[in-house]
């Protein structure tokens, strides 16, 4: 398969077309807008057999996707920042309705002041709604993640929506070589849980009294747990099909013999890898754990991967205001109760598009950064 030079947004559009998506509904917002512009062109040129519903808000975009998914087709939307925040109610809805919608989120800060640049505040703010969350480091990974997301979302043990997150501009508007493999066979057919059946009509989503409601939520939690097992399978199958290793749960980079570990998610991980290499050259045995799947949180697997290191440096490109970075919070919580827990330090970096360079990671590991908020701009 010949490589194409694609931006992150274009990679999404190509993957959506090649995964056999049938209904796309969206509302424009920077930096995810080009995803839908690209899809609109594909539909107009007849390259994609899908119905495009250009709605009047993100709330309606998610609603139309939920309606389409209930009707039994593969649905997709893309958004960012305020758009994702505006969808919030329907993000919950998609989970409880068990509609395996896939959404691309080009991560962007939330205003005011208006800021169109990258940080993960938008999707991190949605961590409790029940969506599976994947974070990407490159445009190839974005491309692969869309197809893998449908496989996980639509698996009978899962049936949950998935958001594929990637840093705005850093990935969304930056071109990289992408292998646009034909994903159609890999994604297979979507078999909805609930069907519009006129012979045996059923009501979806009516009043669910206390006798049933906890079971509904419990089943969703169980499906999240099952999703991790399905992801391992999908990872393997993806490799067997395309001979390309695309991790779904997390990536370990030079971690096997590491004394110190950096933990990241998203595009800043590339800079973290440069820092790891540089630290190794200086004799520090550093490694990186790059989180791909933040929901469900692969706690056990993370603990297994990090339990033998002495110190863990977590870098969050978002913050839970009034507390700490979300990944930092959750990592400490994952290690709670383990006797041989490493020391874990947390840093907030790169909010609203502030540059995150390899020096920042290196300085943290070598003790030259003392603040939990890394504010300085390294030129």
């Amino acid at each position, binding site marked *: 398969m010949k490589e194409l030079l694609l931006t992150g947004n274009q990679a999404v559009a190509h993957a959506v077309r090649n995964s056999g998506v049938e209904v796309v509904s969206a509302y424009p917002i920077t930096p995810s807008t080009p995803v839908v512009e690209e899809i609109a062109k594909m539909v107009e040129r007849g390259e994609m057999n899908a119905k495009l*519903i250009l709605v009047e808000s993100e709330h309606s975009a998610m609603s139309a996707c939920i*309606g389409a998914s209930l009707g039994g087709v593969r649905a997709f939307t893309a958004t960012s920042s305020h758009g994702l925040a505006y969808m919030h109610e329907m993000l919950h809805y998609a989970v409880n309705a068990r509609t395996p919608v896939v959404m691309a989120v080009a991560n962007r800060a939330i205003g005011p002041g208006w800021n169109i640049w990258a940080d993960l505040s938008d999707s991190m703010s949605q961590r409790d709604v029940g969506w599976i969350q994947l974070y990407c480091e490159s445009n190839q990974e974005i491309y692969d993640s869309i197809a893998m997301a449908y496989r996980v979302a639509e698996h009978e043990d899962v049936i949950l929506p998935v958001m594929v997150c990637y840093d705005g501009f850093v990935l969304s508007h930056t071109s990289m070589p992408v292998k646009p493999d034909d994903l159609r066979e890999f994604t297979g057919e979507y078999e909805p849980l609930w069907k519009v059946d006129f012979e045996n009509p059923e*009501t979806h989503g009516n009043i669910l009294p206390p006798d049933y409601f906890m079971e509904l939520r419990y089943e969703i939690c169980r499906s999240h747990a099952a999703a991790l097992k399905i992801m391992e399978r999908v990872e393997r199958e993806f490799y067997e099909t395309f001979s390309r290793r695309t991790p779904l749960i997390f990536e370990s980079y030079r971690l096997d013999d590491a004394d110190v570990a950096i933990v990241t998610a998203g595009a800043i991980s590339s800079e973290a890898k440069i820092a790891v290499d540089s630290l190794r050259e200086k004799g520090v045995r550093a490694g990186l754990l790059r989180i791909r799947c933040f929901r469900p949180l692969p706690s056990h697997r993370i603990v297994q991967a990090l339990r033998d290191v002495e110190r863990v440096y977590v870098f969050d490109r978002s913050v839970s205001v009034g507390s700490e970075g979300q990944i930092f919070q959750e990592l400490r919580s994952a290690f709670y109760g383990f006797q041989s827990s490493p020391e874990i330090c947390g840093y907030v970096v790169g909010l609203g598009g502030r540059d995150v360079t390899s020096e920042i990671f290196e300085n943290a590991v070598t003790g030259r950064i003392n603040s939990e908020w890394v504010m300085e701009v390294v030129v």
Partner: protein
Amino acid sequence: MRISAMPEEEYLLEGNSACHGCGSSMALRTVLKALGKNTVLVVPASCTSVYQGMYPNSAIAVPVVNSAFACSAAIASGLKASLEHKGMEANVVVWAGDGGTYDIGLQALSGAAERNEDIIYICYNNEIYSNTGIQRSSATPFGAWTTTTVHGKREHRKDVAELMVAHGVPYVATASSGHLDDLYRKIRKAKSIEGFRYIEILSPCPPGWKYSMERTVEIARLAVETGMWILYEYENGILKFTGVSKAIADGKKRMKDVEEYLLLQGRFAHLNAEEIQEIRRYVAEKWRKFAGMRGDGHVVAAEFFV
């Protein structure tokens, strides 16, 4: 059409938990008879989301998708696109109250209307948030008591049917729970048309309007006879009065005074003469406006209601 001539099939089942005398459930029963089996209802938060029954039961014998409050028109758009893509023939129908239509759902409704989605949107208008316990909506008429307008609402209602006419959709109709034959005919007509169709049904609510439950039909009819509610159809750019409203417009029937309608309802019991006069003025103004919009002849009786 006689009610006895409607199909015998029932899609709103006995034992549903609607209040006695509920104008909305009478209308829904008729609407489903007119639409028939191949219908999916999209129901946002409303009284119907309660009287459809609790899981694992349902009082509605066609597929139903329950929607969040603000987005029934958007869910219906996605559902229709989906079924169409699969080659399934289906009437995708939103069944929403005035809260879900006039207020929180207006943006999604306007979007779906502008996109000319191939769906039928039905608003059963009981002029209040009835399911949350009788609060004002923007469909609540001037002077009406609600739990959030305890001395009577100070503003006149807005008119979403008129707004849908302004959107220029293929079909708009108003109907009433007091004229089920007319409602049945309009739903059948809507079913035969492609594109976005909007039907609004005035649905009296005994606890919300504070009247005795056996008077729903009488009150719904009085709303039309006093000119408080105008029955019409808008199709191919032409607005036509129907039923009693047509008879009034043609000068064949004299419009009754609004007081006959207001006095039957506890929600208007506190009104003074000045407020009643304000309602008269509003009705006259509304009729003058609609007389100007009429596309099938002049309104003969316009001078009657000044």
